[in-house]
């Protein structure tokens, strides 16, 4: 039997793997874990909180059920209770989690199939944003670099590591000679479309950065003191960083 303190520490670390799919950040960095406690018997009780009552229930469910899955897989854990606080669907989601009802069992007729496609959509967006961050930073740092840069051309940096993780998630090549700039399906981008692809990727990155800024701020407003539970964005805040000048064809 694990000591409660030791188990709590392991549980907190394990929760670093639970991501907000929309913001592409761990729920532990965002401050979404309100409390976590272990009993002498190894039973875990976790409370989650979100920036508003009306955060999308599908993402709320994903994070809550991922939390339960991750904690249930830890050694020495008895039961796991995950409760989402102060959400318009708290009752529904908490009952579904308690009964291990699954997504469709939780939401009934509102759920048609599964959330796999939704997850994939946001994994692709996360990759697109990571690609833009890594490539823009590299191009800025090495003026000689071209848009057909390969993974080997990227400097060792958190942005490069983040990109590799997102590529791994999507099953994209991690070979050194693989081009950094790829389409959503991983296919290479023809040279004449490269600026355009990077340009669109930038709008994705700006959208995700903006959402993260908004959601983090709203959580702090909603739960005074929660700033102490937030960690800086791991893939870097691009706000203070100069952007790359790009010429894009216009009609």
């Amino acid at each position, binding site marked *: 039997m694990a000591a409660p303190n030791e188990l709590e520490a392991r549980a907190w670390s394990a929760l670093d793997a639970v991501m907000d799919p929309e913001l592409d950040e761990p729920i532990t960095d965002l401050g979404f874990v309100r409390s976590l406690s272990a009993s002498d018997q190894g039973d875990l009780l976790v409370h989650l909180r979100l920036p508003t009552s009306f955060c999308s229930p*599908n993402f709320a469910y994903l994070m809550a059920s991922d939390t339960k899955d991750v904690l249930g897989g830890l050694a020495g854990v008895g039961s796991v209770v995950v409760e989402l606080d102060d959400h318009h669907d708290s009752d529904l989601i908490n009952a579904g989690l308690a009964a291990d009802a699954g997504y469709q069992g939780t939401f009934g007729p509102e759920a048609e199939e599964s959330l796999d496609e939704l997850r994939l*959509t946001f994994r692709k967006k996360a990759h697109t944003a990571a690609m833009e961050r890594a490539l823009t930073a590299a191009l800025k740092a090495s003026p000689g670099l071209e848009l057909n840069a390969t993974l080997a051309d990227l400097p060792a940096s958190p942005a490069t590591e983040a990109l590799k993780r997102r590529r791994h998630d999507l099953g994209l090549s991690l070979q050194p000679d693989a081009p950094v700039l790829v389409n959503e399906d991983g296919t290479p981008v023809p040279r004449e479309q490269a600026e*355009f692809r990077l340009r669109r990727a930038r709008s994705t990155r700006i959208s995700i950065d903006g959402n993260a800024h908004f959601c983090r701020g*709203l959580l702090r407003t909603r739960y005074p003191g929660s700033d102490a539970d937030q960690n800086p964005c791991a893939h870097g805040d691009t706000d203070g960083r*100069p952007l790359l000048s790009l010429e894009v064809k216009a009609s």
Partner: protein
Amino acid sequence: MYTKDGENYFIVDAHVALWDASPANQRNIHGKQFIDCFYDYHRNLSPESELWAYEEFISYTGERLMKDLFQDGYVDHAIFQPALLGAFYKNGFGQTEAAFELTRQHPGKLTYNHAYDPRFGEDGLKQLREDAARFNLKGVKLYTAEWFGDSRGWKLDDKWSYRYLEACQELGIDKIHIHKGPTIRPLDRDAFDVADVDKAATDFTDLTFVIEHCGLPRLEDFCWIATQEPNVHAGLAVAMPFIHTRPRYFAQIIGELLYWLDEDRIHFSSDYAIWTPRWLVERFVDFQIPADMDEYAPLSVDQKKKILGLNAAALYDIPVPEHLQLAQPPRPDRQPAVAVA
């Protein structure tokens, strides 16, 4: 009108509301949750000097609206964009009768747009025809995440939605403002997805679709659609106050919108009473893209004049005094600027 450095700006606030979210009007806990969410938006993104007390915020009078917009806020014309939220509020969230009465009391100052929900079917269509005549509707505000019985949302390309859009064509309601909120069935999909707007904009080319808060949180999808559909515009509600909390991020939003949409299809709004126009107008006129962001061209005075009011005036046929108009007024119907690869 706002004047700064010898330049005069005609101001149209394209998204304002007169709401009652007081406890007496709340139908259930969701009525409280909804206004609390708005209040957190207000508290989170406003300068401290502009904060309202919670009691002021949950319900306010038409007199206060007139003062905040027209006396203190430099606004020349404002457009009501109501949310009805009948599942959360007994007498609705937006106060239809009071807002319409204000519009009548102050001719030329206010435009009243109404809301509809296509899930009301034939009865709602009949109501829309009556409302169009009574309010002299030129535009509607649609909230696709409205709850209705067991349903928690609808899409713009639903069959019944198309029936309503056809009625709008017939009734001369040619400005369709759309607000995307979460919770849409099926829950398996991205609730903020704006793809249904793309389809409707393609099928109803004589209607103009103004996407409020420029598609946030899906700015990239919105920009992509607006690039291809010349009848899709951006409303700046919610995006505006970033000018205070994160000006460099605001610069990127404006930079992206100007790049993908062009300067004639972007509309200022305060989203009153979540924010008030005075400080937003002042900050926007003073705002400039930071010099190191050479990715984006600097914002010109003419672009600011268009965004702050001339674009919405052109869209709504609001008369603009000659000395406040540009030599080349906005052409909101022009073709997209970006070549789609």
